[in-house]
């Protein structure tokens, strides 16, 4: 998808707009992980520590 958009964008929209779209993609990569809770990983770490302590 990235290659297709770059190729099409550079041919039709120009350099600035094409790389603005790339910037939007990386902003989306940030926004999409926002609903994921930080605590998920911490919970796992806590559980594995607890297991180790029990073991």
């Amino acid at each position, binding site marked *: *998808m*990235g*290659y*297709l*958009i*770059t*190729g*099409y964008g*550079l*041919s*039709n929209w120009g*350099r*600035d707009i*094409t*790389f603005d*779209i*790339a*910037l939007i*993609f*990386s*902003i*989306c*990569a*940030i926004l*999409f*992980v926002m*609903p*994921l809770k*930080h605590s*998920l*990983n*911490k919970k*796992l*770490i806590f559980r594995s520590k607890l297991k180790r302590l029990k073991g």
Partner: protein
Amino acid sequence: MNKLHFILLFLCSLVIWTTGNGLLPLLPVYAKSLGANDFMVGAYLAFSYLCLAVGGVSSSYFVGQQVSRKRLIIYAGLTCLPLTWAVGYADSIELLIPFTSLLWFFGGVAFSALNTLASELTAPSSRGAFFSLFAMASPLGAIIGGLISGPVVDQWGYQALFNLMTLVTLLWPLSIFLLDIPPSSILSNHQINRHIAHREQRLPISSNIKWLLLASLAAFSANFMGTLGISLNMDKLGFSATDITSTAVVGGLISIPFIYGIGRLSDLFGRKTCWLVCCVSGLIALYLLPSAVSLWNYWWVALLLRVFSTGNRGISNAWVVDLSNGLNVPKLIALAG
């Protein structure tokens, strides 16, 4: 796994990465020299990557058809020899597309089979250490490929590069041919079929995993846009092939410590924090890219993009495992990566 097994498997992986990483920065420039416009270059690379993905998926189909992984890697390597040579002699984009697509397809077949064979030969207790060392083939391949391919093209042209890459590719089937696999360490056909049937179970995709996969798709799209943008921009500005491939070398150099560090950092500071840091690195790179004019500018962009891609790949693999509750882990890792 003994040392000889590791050396031979690593050599095979290194050859694949050296060829791939050595050629990738120059393929857009080569396609343009054959008369392709920017859109055709993008479509050409997108189709090649599609073939790479199809090749990876097909690998398990071939193994299901009673072909051992060792033979599969050797056959794929032998098929890639004339294909690599033929890419150098393509005189139009219409010939370049099928040759490269087939090359990428068999590369995908072999790479997937190689990783599975390596995991079968490694004891479960040492798999983590093995794969972290095995992953070094990617940045090392980028450094070697980047250092070789640019100067060769500048001195002797593209045909010489593909002739040289054909000779390098010869090491791929040869290294696996020399690999002496003890029968006890290989899964039987029954086990393989059971394994495939297990993998074909429906994926339990929770909303968390869906968000992560979407984020991963957006991150990789942005990264590939940046990577292609570097090659095309540098070509337009008149940089030599050596300069263009030097960006791959810089990227490879930063990857070596980063591959090790990012997993550990995400364990310490949380996956989300590290993911955000990597994305900010990508944002800076993509912001700088349109205004980059000197080689130094492009090195910085390549470095930041490599942090973005290596970090996101490492973190998304670990994160998806965290979220999967241990179900269908290989399939989810393949989707996230």
